[in-house]
């Protein structure tokens, strides 16, 4: 069991900045994110895109913003559970919470801060009527363990980087790799596109374009897929695995069933006070929340995180006297023994 003061669900910019604000109050944080790396949308969707409305940065790339936020949180040694999705929440008798992920990892926290953005990123599933019947029976939307495909026949569909990269990688592992894409053109890094061309010429990747997988064939597991080239009759490609790689899209997911008040696919919070939800001790900050006048901006998430931490502190220590201190005055004491403070002026006569 992982224990912490504030459990943050979502490691995007708002979640990361919460670690800093909580750290100033000597509260420890742990973050859960369904993606394998921190940064949320900023690192998953648009790391190379510029943002122009982060105060004091006339322009910053989303990926760089993530790096700077991680740098800023390091002194407060946050814990991370990455690649897992928060699934179940159990309120304990003492008012604390236990949050369990889809992989069974348990987290015990005094406060839960949902900073889940648009939700957790789930693979986009192609519209093939019987595909659900074959999930984990030869259909996989994510490649977890490439060795799983050793000496197996694999069909990959998709035209982006992940389809290209996995086709290249699996061409050395699987016995047969077929790549199917709706267009003749692929969108990806030039290296990957050229590499696929090379492997195709060597006969190590079979390329079928422009084509689509229309049906899956098999009874209790995948034995083939029906492929249709534009304007032609469908034909069958025998295979052991079908791996559709069409990117990720965010879904609010299990959080929607936690008993929280939801409006417009977002969690309602009390914006007059502290961004707490209808369940005391659970807060929602950043893009995942809604209130009158809400704006889904990173800078608003930072503000919400800051106020939320003050409220969390009062909830954890109801009787402690406390006033907010400026970092310029009080410095920053890390949990790693570091201390940052502004240089002291000296009083010395000049002769």
């Amino acid at each position, binding site marked *: 069991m992982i224990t912490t003061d504030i459990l943050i669900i979502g490691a995007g910019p708002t979640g990361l900045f919460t670690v800093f604000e909580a750290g100033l109050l000597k509260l420890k944080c742990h973050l859960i994110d369904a993606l394998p790396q921190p940064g949320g949308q900023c690192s998953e*969707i*648009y790391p190379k895109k510029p943002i122009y409305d982060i105060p004091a940065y006339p322009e910053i790339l989303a990926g760089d913003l993530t790096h700077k936020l991680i740098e800023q949180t390091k002194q407060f040694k946050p814990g991370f559970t990455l690649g897992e999705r928060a699934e179940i929440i159990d309120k304990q008798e003492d008012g604390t919470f236990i949050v369990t992920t889809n992989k069974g990892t348990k987290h015990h926290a005094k406060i839960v801060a949902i900073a889940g953005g648009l939700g957790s990123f789930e693979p986009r599933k*192609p*519209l093939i009527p019987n595909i659900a019947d074959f999930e984990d029976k030869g259909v996989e939307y994510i490649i977890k363990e490439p060795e799983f495909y050793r000496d197996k026949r694999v069909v990959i569909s998709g*035209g982006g980087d992940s389809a290209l990269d996995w086709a290249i990688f699996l061409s050395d592992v699987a016995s047969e790799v077929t790549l199917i894409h709706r267009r003749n053109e692929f*969108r990806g890094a030039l290296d990957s596109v050229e590499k696929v061309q090379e492997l195709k010429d060597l006969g190590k990747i079979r390329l079928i374009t422009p084509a689509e997988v229309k049906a899956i064939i098999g009874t209790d597991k995948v034995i083939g897929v029906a492929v249709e080239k534009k304007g032609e009759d469908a034909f069958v490609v025998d295979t052991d695995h079908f791996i559709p790689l069409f990117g990720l*899209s965010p879904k609010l997911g299990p959080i929607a069933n936690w008993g929280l008040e939801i409006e*417009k696919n*977002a969690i309602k919070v009390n914006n007059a006070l502290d961004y707490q939800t209808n369940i005391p001790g659970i807060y929602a900050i950043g893009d995942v929340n809604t209130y009158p006048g809400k704006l889904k901006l990173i800078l608003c998430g930072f503000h919400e995180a800051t106020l939320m931490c003050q409220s969390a502190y009062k909830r954890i220590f109801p009787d402690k006297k406390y006033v907010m201190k400026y970092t310029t005055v009080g410095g920053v004491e890390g949990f790693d023994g570091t201390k940052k403070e502004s240089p002291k002026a000296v009083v010395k006569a000049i002769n």
Partner: protein
Amino acid sequence: MQDINIKITDRNGVTHEIVAPTDMAMNLMEVVRSYELAEEGTIGICGGMAMCASCQCYVKSDNELPEMSDDEDAMLAEAFNVEDNSRLGCQIQMTQEMDGLEVELAPES
């Protein structure tokens, strides 16, 4: 600058005749959101970067549309329910040329 009239058929098949401003640098996806013709959180997920296809629509009128960028083209190559007249709403700016535009929103996916 003048407002333009466009027709948008929502995901429930209801057609809305609406007025869109041409002086607010708005695109079709933003017009749909401003009139709340699709549920918040189901359209414009990436914010208008041609990176999610949640604003895909089918263009029914013969307005001359802005040329498709490589980003939009690539996104539509991977999106679902794509037809020959599919476009991403976020890439269609509200200009005078779009007066009389008729579109239907693609299903949520």
